[in-house]
């Protein structure tokens, strides 16, 4: 209801403002152009995130210091803490970084974003940046019409910067003309009342514009035009710092619980920093004076002093809260627990990652492994084995021949709860992501989809296999019991091996070892008919048993093939040169048959 009313009210207020004041129109247009520039800039950077930024993020977050450094550097370069926080949420949601690393990046981004105030205060307000904006816009638009993804990205960045500069120019002009007609400084409120009031205005302005950068530039231009007092500008900057968390909060709506925890950490950090800044305002202002003196900043250069203040209170927040990153992560995990559900839900798929091809691949790969885990349990129980009996280090042959417990469980119901919903979510996500993916990524995504389908097929064949396995594994007829145990052993061994290969996912040798599993399956296939003939001939099993065994052998063969194919597609990492070489020397179907023949 509130949402429905809010937008028309804002539009009406703006329209009224434009009607009565051309200066307000210029300032509002400046803010709009600035925000438009931010959007362009973010689009431009996204063009370069197809790998580089994601790889950097993955490699630079193994320690808190590295995470902090990454946050500072990336935000300084991109001049958008919002983009960095949204990418961090997407990475965290995809399970590629830890919550602690994510918090470290957010801390760093808060420091990195203060460089924007320095740039605007030092150059933006002194130099006629509109002169640079025009050629940037022209070059940017020409480049953004190009077909190449990178040229288009560079065009967006240039045009984005052009719009940013143009926006600043309009804001500056608007405030300067404003000064002639009105004196906003007359509305200044002194003391702590003013501090809280203007901090709240700063929060509100940033929430509306969803950019602390835009708010800060607005504050700096208003301060330069002496439309607000220095004290009130400090409070506005504190408010903008708190309000900027809105982007991460909105981004976290579509993220999973980890993303939500990070957004909460972002809000917590900025709120605490704001409280610290308000509580220690006198000391901070004294600190700003001392630093400004030391740096040779003129006593009346309040815009640069505001930049010093912005950096100082964010730095104070980082120094005070850095030792508490780990307890904060633990506390947030307890405060926001993962939702419990009987139905297995996707862990890594969410819309926050969909614009970043490498992250999409990593998230889908993890989700398919998650599907494999869910299916693993059903398959193990379907074979009347417990998961730990397969994954443990015990001798599988002995375990299977000794353990005659038939596990009572409803395979169909387990399939519905643990596989079907998850598989559906993977298919749906891949279908949506594919339209955003460049061709080589789309091919890999297709292979992962195939892998998920293979896992589901394997579960379905286990269902057919289960009926007779449960019957004959406890039979008094020793030969048929042994035959069905052999089928169980074959699948259990494949599951165990795949788990082992999974622990060394980047080792190309794991990929090659899948061929041994294939050869063993082929050897069984080549010898099964002769073997069953012998069992019938020696009257060790009845013809009825033989028919069941033949059918069930086919099911087990299907399970084996689907599992091996699923593992192959999951283990292959494209763009990994050694993996590409391994794919070339993997044995093809004819070679597998040949080696199997040599062995039997």
């Amino acid at each position, binding site marked *: 209801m509130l949402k429905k009313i809010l937008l028309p009210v804002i539009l009406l207020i703006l329209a009224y403002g434009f009607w009565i004041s051309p200066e307000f129109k210029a300032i509002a247009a400046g803010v709009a152009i600035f925000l438009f520039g931010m959007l362009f800039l973010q689009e431009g950077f996204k063009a370069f995130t197809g790998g580089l930024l994601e790889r950097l993020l993955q490699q630079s977050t193994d320690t808190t210091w590295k995470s902090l450094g990454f946050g500072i550097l990336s935000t300084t370069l991109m001049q958008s803490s919002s983009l960095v926080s949204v990418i961090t949420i997407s990475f965290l949601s995809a399970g590629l970084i830890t919550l602690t690393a994510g918090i470290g990046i957010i801390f760093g981004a808060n420091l990195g974003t203060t460089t924007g105030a320095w740039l605007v205060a030092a150059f933006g307000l002194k130099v006629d940046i509109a002169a640079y904006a025009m050629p940037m816009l022209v070059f940017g638009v020409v480049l953004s019409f190009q077909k190449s993804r990178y040229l288009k990205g560079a065009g967006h960045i240039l045009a984005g910067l052009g719009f940013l500069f143009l926006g600043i120019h309009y804001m500056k002009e608007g405030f300067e003309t404003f000064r002639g007609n009105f004196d906003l400084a007359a509305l200044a409120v002194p003391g702590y009342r003013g501090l809280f009031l203007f901090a709240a205005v700063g929060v509100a302005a940033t929430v509306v514009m969803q950019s602390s950068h835009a708010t800060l530039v607005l504050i700096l231009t208003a301060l330069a035009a002496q439309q607000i007092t220095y004290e009130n500008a400090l409070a506005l900057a504190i408010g903008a710092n708190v309000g900027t968390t809105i982007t991460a909060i909105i981004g976290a709506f579509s993220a999973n619980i980890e993303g939500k925890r990070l957004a909460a950490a972002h809000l917590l950090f900025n709120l605490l920093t704001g409280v610290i800044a308000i509580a220690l305002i006198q000391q901070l202002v004294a600190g700003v004076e001392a630093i400004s003196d030391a740096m040779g900043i003129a006593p009346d250069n309040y815009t640069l002093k505001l930049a010093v203040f912005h950096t100082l209170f964010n730095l104070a927040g980082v120094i005070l809260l850095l030792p508490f990153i780990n307890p904060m992560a633990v506390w947030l995990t307890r405060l926001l627990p993962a939702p419990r559900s009987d139905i297995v839900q996707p862990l890594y798929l969410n819309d926050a990652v969909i614009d970043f091809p490498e992250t999409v691949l990593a998230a889908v790969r993890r989700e398919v492994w998650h599907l494999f885990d869910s299916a693993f349990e059903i398959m193990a129980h379907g074979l009347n084995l417990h998961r730990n009996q397969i994954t443990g280090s015990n001798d599988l042959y002995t375990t299977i021949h000794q353990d005659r417990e038939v596990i009572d469980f409803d395979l169909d119901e387990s399939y519905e709860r643990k596989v079907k919903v998850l598989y559906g979510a993977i298919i749906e996500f891949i279908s949506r992501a594919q339209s955003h993916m460049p061709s080589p990524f789309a091919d890999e995504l297709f292979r992962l989809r195939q892998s998920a389908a293979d896992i589901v097929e394997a579960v379905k064949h286990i269902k057919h296999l289960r009926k007779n396995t449960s019957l004959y594994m406890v039979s008094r007829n020793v030969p048929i019991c042994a035959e069905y145990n052999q089928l169980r052993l074959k699948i259990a061994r494949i599951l165990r091996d795949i788990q082992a290969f999974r622990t060394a996912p980047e080792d190309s040798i794991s990929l090659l070892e899948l061929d041994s599993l294939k050869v063993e399956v082929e050897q069984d296939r080549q010898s099964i008919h002769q073997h069953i003939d012998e069992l019938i001939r020696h009257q060790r099993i009845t013809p009825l048993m033989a028919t069941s065994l033949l059918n069930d052998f086919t099911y087990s063969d299907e399970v084996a093939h689907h599992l091996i194919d699923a593992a192959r597609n999951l283990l292959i990492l494209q763009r990994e040169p050694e993996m590409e070489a391994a794919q070339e020397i993997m044995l093809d179907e004819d070679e597998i048959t040949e*080696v199997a023949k040599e062995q039997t």
Partner: protein
Amino acid sequence: MKLNKIRKKLKKLKHQFKTKSGVRPDKLAKLTQKLQEKIATYKEKLADSPGNNKRHSLKTKLKVAQAQLKKARKLEAALAPVEKEKTE
């Protein structure tokens, strides 16, 4: 039929190598080395476990690794003239 298949594959590899895509000889050499080490390990394990029920599986692994090594060597030999041509 089989010869045709090999010829096609070699043509593809030659193209991939010329265009800097596909298999890299240095990575192939590394993989060959790893396969040799694997073969040595399987042989050692086979010698150490007479009558073990894992013997059959070990023998299969050894055969497969040997077949893969043979294939890797063929591939190395096929790539060598292309590499030479490229450096010249």
